[in-house]
């Protein structure tokens, strides 16, 4: 292909504006741009809320609340920081508040989610199944404090490094590591107590 023709080909066709540009557009009064932002972030925000809260309907409500707060506070966003970090901070604050209120209302660990394993399963040993892992997690993670659970979810499921979690939560990295250590310990204790078949996996560790 001749060089002059090659130059005419756009190098970045149909590239969506990055988050910062999108925020600038919203600030200039474009509500459609906000819809684009909501659509772009829905799965991430919802997933984090769901993992922290453990209930689909509550997670949906809290996610919507997060986006409304985002709309109201978008003027406070400082573009020199990563948008996702700022958004995650909002998500964790709202979700942790919700969990604290919920805990004070219930003030008890819900143990109704105990799984029933069949004899056939027992014979076969532990076969790890994703849906079951999810149920086990939702069940035993109730013993964690809202902050411990948030840190565990962000590190183990969202794959965020402790440094970024510290930025999001506005605390020191060592605090994040302590919370993570304690969360793992509590989870293992609960697993031992309530799901010994899975706890065996930790036996030699």
């Amino acid at each position, binding site marked *: 292909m001749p060089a002059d023709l090659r130059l005419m080909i756009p190098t970045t066709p149909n590239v969506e504006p990055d988050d910062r540009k999108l925020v600038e557009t919203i600030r200039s009064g474009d*509500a459609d741009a906000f819809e684009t932002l*909501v659509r772009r972030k829905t*799965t991430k925000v*919802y997933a984090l809320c769901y993992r922290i809260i453990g209930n689909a309907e509550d997670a949906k409500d809290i996610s*919507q609340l997060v986006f409304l707060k985002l709309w109201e506070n978008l003027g406070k966003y400082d573009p020199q920081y990563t948008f996702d970090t700022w958004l995650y901070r909002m998500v964790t604050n709202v979700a942790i508040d919700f969990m604290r209120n919920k805990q004070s209302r219930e003030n008890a660990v819900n143990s109704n989610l105990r799984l029933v394993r069949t004899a056939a399963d027992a014979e076969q040993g532990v076969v790890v199944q994703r849906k079951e892992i999810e149920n086990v997690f939702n069940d035993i993670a109730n013993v964690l404090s809202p902050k411990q659970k948030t840190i565990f979810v962000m590190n183990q499921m969202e794959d965020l490094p402790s440094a970024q979690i510290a930025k999001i939560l506005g605390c020191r990295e060592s605090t994040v590591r302590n919370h993570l250590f304690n969360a793992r310990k509590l989870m293992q204790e609960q697993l031992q107590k309530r799901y010994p078949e899975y706890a065996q996996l930790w036996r030699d560790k």
Partner: protein
Amino acid sequence: MIHCESFRTRFGVNADDPAVLEHLRACDRCLDFAAQQDPDVMFRALGGAEMMPPGGVDAFVDDVMTQVRVRSAEDTVHARPEQHWARRLAIAATIAAGVTGAAFFYSSDSTITPAVSRPVAAVATKTFATKPVVESYESQNATIVEVPGEEAGNDDVKIVMIFDENLPADL
């Protein structure tokens, strides 16, 4: 995505490798293998991405945008009293200035000529002559009250009151 063999080789080296985690979250057999090797990955296998809220993303976004529009409309309504307040202040200032001016005018005038000697009708005529006369008025925002004449059988409108925020304050 990497293959199972590659996963099992790389898993022991770096369980945090994004490619390893991607495979872990997709392959059941390798999840079992990984959970035996390192139980910590059991909950890690759940991952966090690509979860949809109940009802789907479109319905979720529609709900959010509806609430955003409602809140924006509420904010506009709540912002209006401030405009009324400013407008009222402007009207009050105009009236105060008018009253002060008139008081000053009459007080300075009375030192020259006694008030009793002034013909009242002439003063009233002079006052009305300076005001614009509204022959017809149309506005979607105005409330117009028409008061018929006091004499029986007289359909002519005698007094018309127009309440409209868009009218100039001195009309």
